[in-house]
């Protein structure tokens, strides 16, 4: 009663499972089409959502990391008072560094950042209306808020600004988009899993006699399960072809063509080359996952004893 060869899968066995799995995909006709269709729709939405989400995330991160707290110093403050203020700011927790920027430097920065239009401000050269500024780099983006309120308590502070409204709005938008997208995707993923499991179940029912004989003569459960596993996986793979093509094409167009015609100065799209590979890989992985889960769901019930 040797059992030596039961567990190790042989190469010709893998070939057999692949053949059987592929056969079922073609045999189930319309069920296959609907299962692949559902997977395609799901993955298409997943792909678009992921592309948008990941870019938004990247955008939010870059803004977060750019956060600086600008402290406008009262014009009446004299040199020693300004120096004192600088020391007080440095003493605040979570302040990574403080830099002093005189009103002349501020004006220069403003003129530079506005380009040609900024030239108009050169008029102010003589009577600079700006304040001298301390620019604080917070140790973490979330510390900006508490630093700002601490600084407001100090003397000779005219105003504190870290663009909280813009930052807050972007975060809120990001969060809503993420939640809605996730709910949508989870719903779609389950629909696709359900359709795939139904398709695989049809194969199983059609093969009940074969499965019965296989069990009778001592085929292992793993051996019986593999073709269905592969069928589900193939359905998932086939369902991910169109989404990958569409997302790749769409992103290519957006990245290389549309970007030139719209002014995307402040939004940095993730570079096409590594990003599209990662995205395609992710879509493929989700597709295969949907397929495998679908088949596992229907096979499990049929293999008892």
């Amino acid at each position, binding site marked *: 009663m040797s059992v030596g060869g*039961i567990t190790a899968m042989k190469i010709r066995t893998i070939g*057999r499972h692949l053949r059987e799995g592929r056969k079922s995909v073609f045999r189930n006709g319309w069920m296959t089409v609907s299962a692949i269709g559902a997977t395609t729709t799901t993955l298409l939405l997943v792909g678009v959502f992921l592309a948008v989400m990941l870019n938004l995330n990247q955008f939010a991160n870059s803004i977060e990391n750019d956060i600086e707290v600008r402290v406008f110093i009262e014009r009446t403050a004299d040199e020693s008072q300004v120096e004192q203020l600088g020391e007080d700011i440095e003493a605040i927790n979570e302040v990574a560094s403080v830099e002093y920027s005189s009103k002349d430097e501020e004006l220069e920065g403003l003129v530079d950042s506005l380009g040609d239009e900024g030239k108009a401000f050169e008029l102010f050269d003589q009577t600079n209306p700006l304040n001298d500024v301390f620019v604080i780099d917070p140790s973490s983006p979330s510390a900006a808020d508490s630093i700002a309120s601490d600084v407001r308590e100090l003397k000779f502070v005219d105003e504190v600004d870290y663009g909280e409204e813009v930052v807050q709005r972007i975060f809120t938008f990001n969060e809503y988009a993420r939640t809605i997208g996730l709910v949508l995707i989870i719903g779609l993923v389950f629909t696709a899993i359900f359709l795939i499991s139904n398709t695989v179940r049809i194969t199983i029912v059609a093969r009940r006699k074969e499965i019965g004989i296989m069990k*009778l003569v*001592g085929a292992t*459960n793993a051996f019986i399960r593999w073709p269905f596993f592969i069928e589900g996986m193939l359905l998932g793979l086939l369902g991910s072809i169109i989404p990958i093509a569409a997302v790749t094409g769409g992103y290519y167009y957006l990245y290389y063509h549309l970007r030139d015609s719209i002014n995307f100065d402040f939004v940095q799209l993730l570079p096409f080359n590594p990003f599209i590979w990662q995205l395609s890989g992710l879509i493929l992985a989700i597709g295969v996952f949907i397929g495998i889960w679908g088949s596992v769901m229907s096979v499990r019930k049929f293999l008892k004893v």
Partner: protein
Amino acid sequence: MIEMQGVYKTYPNGVTALNGLDVRIQQGEFVYVVGPSGAGKSTFTKLIFREEKPSKGSIHINDLDLAAMKERRIPKLRRNIGVVYQDFRLLPRLTVYENVAFALEVIEQRPAEIKTRVMDVLEQVRLKNKARFIPDELSGGEQQRVSIARAIANRPRILIADEPTGNLDPETSWEIMHILEEINQTGTTILMATHNREVVNRVRKRVIAIEDGVIVRDERRGDYGYED
């Protein structure tokens, strides 16, 4: 050797099929299992290849303890037990050759071995010349011979036949009996559940009669004993 001690079997629906059954069958015996319908014959055979688990009691096949056996060991057990049914259970779209080969393929035998082994067993059941036929093109007796060929293809030590002549006319039944006897002569234990009085009374073997889930008679060269 098959050994059962105090075996009880109650199904989830409350039906009690076996009621404390004790039996011991030596390797190489030929045993008829007789008794009225619903007496527990089928359950008795199902326990041996672990299609069912006993509710109570112990079942040993050689060194294997079937009551304690883990699920994943079942394939190993079944590769040593051949099973033949009244309704043949052949795959209708496969040829005779493919039906027998299927049983060896799914337990991952080597293709070269499968080829020679299938032809050997088809010769043994005298169906070599019909290897390319599909089941529908064969008579009932021939189909049963295919199912026997499939059952013995892996050289099992035990062959269970559940009403193998149930769907066959008397003449064909003798044919099947002849083949089963030949298989028995190679040392394979044969357990045959049957209602066929003619066969039991003419080809005298050990007879175990089961009624109401217990063995009521066990004779070395018994007769059928029921009036039908």
